[in-house]
């Protein structure tokens, strides 16, 4: 995998992970182009597209788009499930993840990703093991993170019904 981007329906980048060396300028250009391309696509279109010499695999979960760029010989479907597994991990970790969790706890989103994918390759695909690693780290923390979906502040809880594959059943 060459990079992974998370962005909102409004086109705001929520997470970016680059597994190939690129200058800041190139990264910005790529993100801008891709966000535009993907937001322009209609809901029922296929999750894969050719873009430059890469294959883009993307999927929308409620208000967030998850987008991975893989190389020609890489497997699209398994990449799609990498996205899903990452969503499951976030979901399990945050209880029931929403976009705001990722905004306010962005560093956690990065840490979880690092436990799951490293250098663009799956490092550990067992959900239990990834979460165990993160939880161990959390036990070392002196303070706890703040979970947004559990407080009464004005938060737009994302509509999980939007996408049936935003599955929580499997995460129990």
């Amino acid at each position: 995998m060459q990079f992974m981007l998370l962005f909102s329906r409004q086109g705001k980048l929520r997470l970016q992970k680059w597994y190939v060396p690129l200058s800041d300028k190139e990264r910005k250009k790529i993100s801008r182009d891709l966000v535009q391309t993907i937001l322009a696509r209609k809901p029922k279109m296929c999750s894969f597209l050719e873009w430059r010499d890469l294959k883009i695999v993307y999927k929308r979960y409620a208000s967030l788009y998850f987008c991975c760029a893989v190389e020609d010989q890489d497997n699209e479907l398994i990449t799609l499930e990498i996205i899903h597994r990452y969503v499951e991990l976030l979901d399990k970790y945050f209880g029931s993840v929403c976009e705001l969790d990722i905004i306010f706890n962005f560093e956690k989103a990065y840490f979880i990703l690092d436990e799951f994918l490293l250098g663009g390759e799956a490092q550990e695909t067992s959900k239990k093991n990834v979460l165990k690693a993160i939880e161990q780290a959390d036990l070392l923390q002196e303070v706890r993170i703040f979970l947004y979906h559990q407080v009464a502040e004005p938060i737009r809880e994302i509509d999980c019904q939007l996408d049936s594959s935003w599955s929580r059943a499997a995460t129990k």
Partner: protein
Amino acid sequence: MPAVSKGDGMRGLAVFISDIRNCKSKEAEIKRINKELANIRSKFKGDKALDGYSKKKYVCKLLFIFLLGHDIDFGHMEAVNLLSSNKYTEKQIGYLFISVLVNSNSELIRLINNAIKNDLSSRNPTFMCLALHCIANVGSREMAEAFASEIPRILVAGDTMDSVKQSAALCLLRLYKTSPDLVLMGEWTSRVVHLLNDQHMGVVTAAISLITCLSQKNPDEFKTCVSLAVSRLSRIVSSASTDLQDYTYYFVPAPWLSCKLLRLLQCYPPPEDGAVKGRLVECLETILNKAQEPPKSKKVQHSNAKNAILFEAISLIIHYDSEPNLLVRACNQLGQFLQHRETNLRYLALESMCTLASSEFSHEAVKTHIETVINALKTERDVSVRQRAADLLYAMCDRSNAKQIVAEMLSYLETADYSIREEMVLKVAILAEKYAVDYSWYVDTILNLIRIAGDYVSEEVWYRVIQIVINRDDVQGYAAKTVFEALQAPACHENMVKVGGYILGEFGNLIAGDPRSSPLVQFNLLHSKFHLCSVPTRALLLSAYIKFINLFPETKATIQEVLRCDSQIRNSDVELQQRAVEYLKLSSIASTDVLATVLEEMPPFPERESSILAKLKKKKGPGAVSVTELEDSKREGGELNGGGDRGQDTATMAASNASTPSPSADLLGIRSTAPLGAAPASAGSLLVDVFSEAGPTAPSAAVNDDGFLRFVCKNNGVLFENQLLQIGIKSEYRQNLGRMYLFYGNKTSVQFASFTTTVSCPGELQSQLNVQTKPVEPLVEGGAQIQQVLNIECLTDFSDAPLLNIKFRYGGALQNLTLKLPVTINKFFQPTEMTSHDFFQRWKQLSQPQQEAQKIFKANNSMDTEVLKAKLLGLGTALLDNVDPNPENYVCAGVIQTKSQQVGCLLRLEPNAQAQVQHTDSPERVSHNYSSIPNFLHYLSPYSVNI
């Protein structure tokens, strides 16, 4: 639930993020950020030492600001300080900052590396993982230098925790990708391979990515992984869905690992060991069987994971291309997917079938799905799926279905997405030419193409139709009639006017008998378009007009009048004005005979590679693979995949052209002339001095081959020179054909009499090489030069060289001289570009003794890189950069084109500078049982002596 609970984390950070989110405008956001930056800066600069928590908080804020897209130019030092904190979260934030905002500040890198070193040796697995993640995220050269030797040790050490092993494996992979020269597995190789046997599935999952990458570069060293991978795969495939516990994903056992295993196997040819192969085939069959079973879950994740494995298995089956049964089953399975309700599956099935279409075993099976694919082209709502369908139609096209496919593609073109029109046009043009049985169909197709998508018809396309019409007299009348009709349309594309102008100018006479298309009608029709056209088209039309004057004298007055008017003869465009003036003058003063000679019909164009193909090759895209494929079969004159005797390698080698256009793809298809740099011929002691040796009765019959070797890597130069005679050579080769110009120069002031030259192919060369020439003039005046042309056709591989015998009388003495003509097998090389992966994969496949040759020889002079490169290019192969992991080595690839077959050749030259320029020329790999390759190397070695 996770081990997190409500708390007041980094309260300040949360407040800041909230503030940013509440900003109503970009300006407000920037203002808020600047305020925060000023605050952080003052905190960092303040006298009061910050505690770890504050430092962490501010560094985290900086990170957030950076991720919002703003520049951050400070805080790096504070982040580095965090790395040495004992508190995990502080360390973690420090590493995250470094990973995201790596700065090549050397001072900082040293500090970062120190912190990493400490953590790596801390024996605390969480710290070690953090450090490894950081290296993997940054992956810089400096880090590779510092840690590339340390990490393999961590990876294979017996007491390393599993999670650390996983990180170490992928960390090493990242370093290997950035700095392959620094990551040397050496002694660790076998232990790394054996990680495939590790009990921990996560370790295997991580390690296999590393092993796959290393195998691509060093297939030989890692080949033991094949049997391990097969047995691992077999265990997973046959396991029940619950066996693998948490590695089962939606009832699919270990999908990621399965895909990676199948991917690793694609780095190698089918296993040689019968038992291993049998087990693998069993696995593949099981995977295909499972695809037919009812799903264990309705969730899309279940079917995606299952099908991910299936597609990867199909890729492996296609890669092997040796199991007809599996190929056909794969094709049937994909056929089912073509009508699946999931768009994703339809897309992937179309994509995967494209590669199946190029296998001789499954081409026919793919063809049975033509209706479905055409339907997809018409009805798919997603343009990327339609594009795949168009690619597949192109790939499955052969003589039997060309008309249908071309018609469908043409009609699709009318509504096609703008972004893909040009490529579609090229593809239609290529198919139309390739499968044209009657050329009237071809002409119709191209004119339709211009009518439908004129803007996307590049010059190459309309040049090509003209070339073909000119070369084939059976289609000229039809072409003239058709363009005449096409031009009747009130609005026609400028490209149509160009083609029309050219064709009517050449062949308008063929339809002039019909009063409806009489010369004047033709002229008026063309001229009615004139004013709407651009300058180049007008220039072309003016030329058509003067051709009309020659073809139809009755139009002369009308046309002269047109030329004479101010808008032509005083046109502000120099080119147009010049043409008008010159044509007017030409038509007024030249006699009909002169006019007829000057304006004679265009001679046939030399047959050459279609420039359209070259153009499509330059365009990237999945279809491009099949382009070269088509081109290959075209050379054989057979149908797609019809050529049974074509080496599989040649095909795949050519296919790898697709990603990078080969240098031979230039428009003219002429090889670049060999680089200079070889020593010029010196008429020195090396050469046989015919004059001094040859008495009147003692002709020197010995074959002189000193000049010969210098031409192995070049095509032009002086072959022979003595005091009487100089023989120069100019030659060019294309595919299996060559043309050689010999220049005989009389260096004396006296005439050579009875000058005769004979070219002969001794022994079996007669059946291998076809050389044709015409006799030369028997008299060569003093100081004069005469020329002789040889047409050479390579029928099959050969090792001897043709002989050139020259006899003449100089001052009464008979001179007799025999030279070897420098026609060597490498002249028929077509360079082939390929990636490192492809190269070594093929290299690996060619392992039989008769497929390789190796030679070690000494170079006389120091090895200059540029000179060596020039020599290797001159050999005719493509010199591949960044292929061999050792940058000292040279790696080349090419396809030798003979009439009977094409043979892919791979070459590695390993200079050994230490051992006093001892060259090891490692195996010359050929894809056929190709006995004369050692001979070819024999040429190589003396030439290297010349280096």
